[in-house]
């Protein structure tokens, strides 16, 4: 039965055992009766692209970073003509979002401001982006330099003889604030360029579709993509390590199945092996600082990086080695992709009306400039910054556990960031005085209860959306980034359309059949067999190497600009993205046909 609206957020029931979940999140992040009139009339969709799973209280920082920064840059800084920010609410531990439109009567005035402001950036894009990398790298170095250690019984002599003038306890308080604030600051930079970049990219799409109504999304993105962006560097490093292993005569020794620790210990026994392991270790910082979350990299504290879990990149190196041994080329055909990009760009350009060609040239040039940023910012912020932020958070949690403020490090992530600041103060004050913190005794029941709630919330299947859907979804960022369209929303409303097919967005062309492999956590990646159809909430660039093995990819979330779609196009593999519920619907081992031309997945 097709309904005409999704459940009201005010009618969502708390799953059994999760009573009191609201205490895990900041009050301003929740639906509340004071805003009921406003919020009940809005259309909210589950942001499974960035936050596919239940949020730990501490990880709410992730949502807050983009909630504020995206909003400020759209609404207040660049005056994005049609769009304000994206509002957020948490329900049963899941994030729901709704794009806020600018009032129609303001659009013209905003457009004038936007022209001045964004125009300034477009004219100087490359120079600004160079500065941007310096700013962000400096922030990264700042948080890398932070140290969270159990507080010493006696301060080192340097505190005295260098006239430092403050205590290790003060520094712990200060550095946690710095950690959080620096992450916030970086998110300002994230949105300094991102949405005006997307606006330029979208414009190129709109222009091509206007002139060529039949053109495919893939053709348009091929005119822009194929650049030598740094985002591919981690994968390129794995390929380089595979070639190095071949050169050093290590093929045989790497062809086993032992884990990375065992293998590296064995390799260190001789010169060639030791050279390769040393190379690996040098490469790991920063190139293996790659988050492995499905979907938005760095979204949760729980996923390891390649550096944390070298078995993930090692599996890829082994796969590359196998292909090298079979005489295959493992290099990305960048030159061919670029040549093809130029060929098709010239081809479409030739078909335009004469007086459109100059605008086309200007727009494709800008789209290519911004595209490098759109791709690369993921490496700088989603990978490096977040990986470092989570690593430092783990370091802090270990220090707090060592000092008895909490029972075990993971406990800290069941506290909201404000509660963590309180716990640090409690801990520092007791340390300073030589007294006893209230800490663990006070927090123990709270954390124990939240662990139960967290488990209960994970069992809840969130509806894809809440509230009344708009008649038309044409907000450009929603369509492009989340892959949410008028059609996909009516598909959600149809709910039990159980005809053995799933519909999504055609992310990368081609049609293949194969067995399903459902992967929801990167630890399952080694199970992927050659020819499998990878079915996942979303992919991350960290998963790129697995694409060498898969026949096709199907994701729950994402539009044509999602990483799944981009990477699959790079690898020439069909992809259907934004299906909504492939992970919940499909089972490992089922045979499916994936049609990347039409966006349909059929169970065979």
């Amino acid at each position: 039965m097709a309904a005409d609206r999704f459940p009201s957020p005010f009618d969502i029931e708390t799953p059994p055992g999760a009573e009191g979940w609201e205490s895990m999140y900041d009050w301003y992040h929740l639906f509340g009766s004071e805003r009921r009139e406003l919020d009940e009339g809005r259309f909210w969709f589950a942001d499974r692209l960035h936050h596919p799973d239940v949020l730990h209280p501490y990880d709410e920082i992730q949502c807050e970073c983009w909630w504020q920064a995206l909003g400020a840059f759209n609404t207040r800084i660049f005056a994005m003509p049609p769009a304000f920010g994206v509002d957020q609410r948490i329900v049963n531990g899941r994030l729901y979002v709704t794009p806020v439109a600018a009032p129609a009567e303001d659009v013209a005035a905003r457009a004038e401001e936007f022209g001045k402001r964004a125009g300034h950036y477009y004219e100087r894009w490359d120079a600004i982006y160079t500065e941007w990398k310096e700013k962000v790298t400096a922030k990264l170095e700042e948080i890398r330099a932070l140290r969270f250690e159990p507080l010493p019984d006696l301060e080192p002599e340097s505190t005295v003889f260098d006239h430092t003038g403050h205590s290790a306890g003060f520094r712990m308080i200060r550095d946690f604030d710095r950690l959080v604030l620096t992450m916030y600051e970086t998110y300002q930079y994230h949105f300094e360029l991102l949405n005006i970049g997307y606006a330029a990219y979208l414009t190129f799409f709109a222009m091509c579709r206007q002139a060529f109504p039949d053109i495919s999304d893939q053709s348009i993105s091929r005119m822009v993509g194929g650049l030598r962006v740094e985002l591919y560097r981690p994968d390129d490093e794995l390929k380089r390590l595979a070639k190095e292993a071949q050169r050093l005569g290590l093929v045989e020794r790497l062809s086993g199945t032992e884990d990375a620790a065992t293998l590296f210990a064995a390799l260190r026994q001789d010169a060639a092996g030791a050279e390769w392991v040393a190379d690996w270790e040098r490469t790991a910082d920063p190139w293996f600082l790659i988050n492995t979350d499905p979907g938005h990299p760095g979204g949760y504290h729980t996923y390891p990086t390649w550096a944390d879990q070298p078995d993930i990149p090692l599996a890829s190196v082994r796969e590359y080695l196998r292909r090298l041994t079979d005489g295959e080329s493992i290099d990305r055909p960048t030159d061919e992709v670029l040549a093809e990009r130029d060929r098709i760009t010239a081809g479409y350009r030739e078909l335009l009306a004469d007086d459109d060609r100059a605008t086309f040239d200007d727009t494709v040039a800008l789209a290519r400039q911004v595209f490098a940023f759109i791709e690369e910012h993921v490496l700088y912020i989603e990978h490096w910054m977040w990986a470092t932020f989570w690593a430092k958070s783990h370091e802090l949690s270990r220090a707090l556990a060592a000092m008895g403020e909490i029972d075990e490090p993971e406990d800290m992530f069941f506290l909201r960031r404000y509660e963590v600041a309180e716990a640090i103060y409690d801990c520092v004050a007791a340390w300073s005085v030589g007294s006893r913190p209230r800490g663990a005794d006070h927090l123990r029941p709270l954390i124990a209860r939240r662990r139960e709630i967290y488990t209960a919330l994970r069992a809840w299947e969130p509806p894809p959306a809440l509230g009344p859907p708009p008649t038309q979804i044409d907000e450009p960022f929603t369509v492009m980034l989340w892959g949410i369209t008028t059609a996909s929303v009516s598909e959600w409303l149809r709910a039990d359309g159980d005809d053995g097919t799933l519909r999504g967005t055609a992310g990368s062309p081609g049609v293949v059949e194969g067995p399903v492999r459902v992967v929801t956590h990167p630890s399952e990646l080694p199970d992927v067999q050659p020819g499998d159809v990878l079915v996942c909430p979303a992919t991350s660039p960290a998963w790129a190497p697995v694409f060498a093995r898969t026949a096709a990819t199907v994701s729950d979330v994402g539009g044509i600009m999602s990483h799944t779609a981009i990477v699959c196009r790079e690898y020439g593999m069909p992809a259907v993205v934004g299906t909504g519920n492939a992970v919940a619907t499909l089972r490992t081992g089922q045979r499916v046909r994936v049609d990347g031309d039409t966006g349909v997945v059929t169970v065979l």
Partner: protein
Amino acid sequence: MSAGWIVGLADAAAADVATVGGKGAGLHRLVALGARVPAGFVVTTDAFRAALDTVAAQVEAPLQALGPDAPIDAVERAAAQARARLLRTASAGPVLEEVRAAYDDLAGGIARVAVRSSAVGEDAAGASFAGEHDTFLEIRGRDAVADAVCRCWASLYTARAVSYREHAGAGPAGAMAVVVQEMVPARAAGVFMTLNPANGDRSTVVCEAVWGLGEPLVSGAVTPDRFVVDKVSGEVVRREIADKPRQLVRGEMPGTAEVDVSAERRGRPCLDDAELAELLDLARRVERDAGVPQDGEFAVAEPGGPARVHLLQTRPETVWSTRAPRAATNGSGARTALSAVLATLTRGAAATSTTPEGTPDHGG
């Protein structure tokens, strides 16, 4: 033997529209481009005039006698008289002897051929004369071919052709060339356009095809498969596969036969990707050579080689090619990337395609 009555499609003389008619000249151009075109020759307008030389006045007399607003049945009667006179008087004589000889030279005189009219003024941009003159398929034997040539000539004098000329202001019958070409034993056949007639998108080649010979498609008797292929990327961006229960094929006897399509084939696409790619390549070359969007007919021979798409004719597309290409900036006047960005953002919906103004048809 008189020079200029019979001209091979590859001969330089076949470039002259006044000699070989629109269809003949178009085929010559395809041969010159290196496209695969069934072997054949043209019975020229000189041959037509020579054959009718002494009898033309007599043939046209019944039509000349008609008043300007003659009723349709009077036109019918006069046209029938003219055709009968033409067939009676022109079927003998040296011109048709040369047609028989030319047929003998084509595949040893056993080929099945298509005999098609190629009137001067036909198939030009702006006036398609589509289907106004006769075509005879699967003709075999020297006398049958000579007879078909005569019937093509006679089709200048059907009531509908007379009315059409009247309507188009094309004047009296003039001269007609006739193209005689080997038949492609088509596994599938169809038509293509080097733009999408539904929306004027010049980045696509739209192709419609059926099993067997293409005539039922051209005449609109069957629903074809429809493919939209991107001219630049080569992608097949849309496939609409029709149920195709019947097909026209080569008959046991000379001529064609309509037969059932097997149950397992009728719902299958009648062109595969390799054939579409070959057609796309041909269509692009033809369009580039002509300098304006084209439409045309093609046939796909039975499997036997990688290259098997044959072009049967092409001509300028008559509707969209007279208009400017679609505007990329949608009348926003955007001249720079920034103004284009502003136009996109203030238009609200990004990238929705617009409704086409008018939907020109294929024109067979």
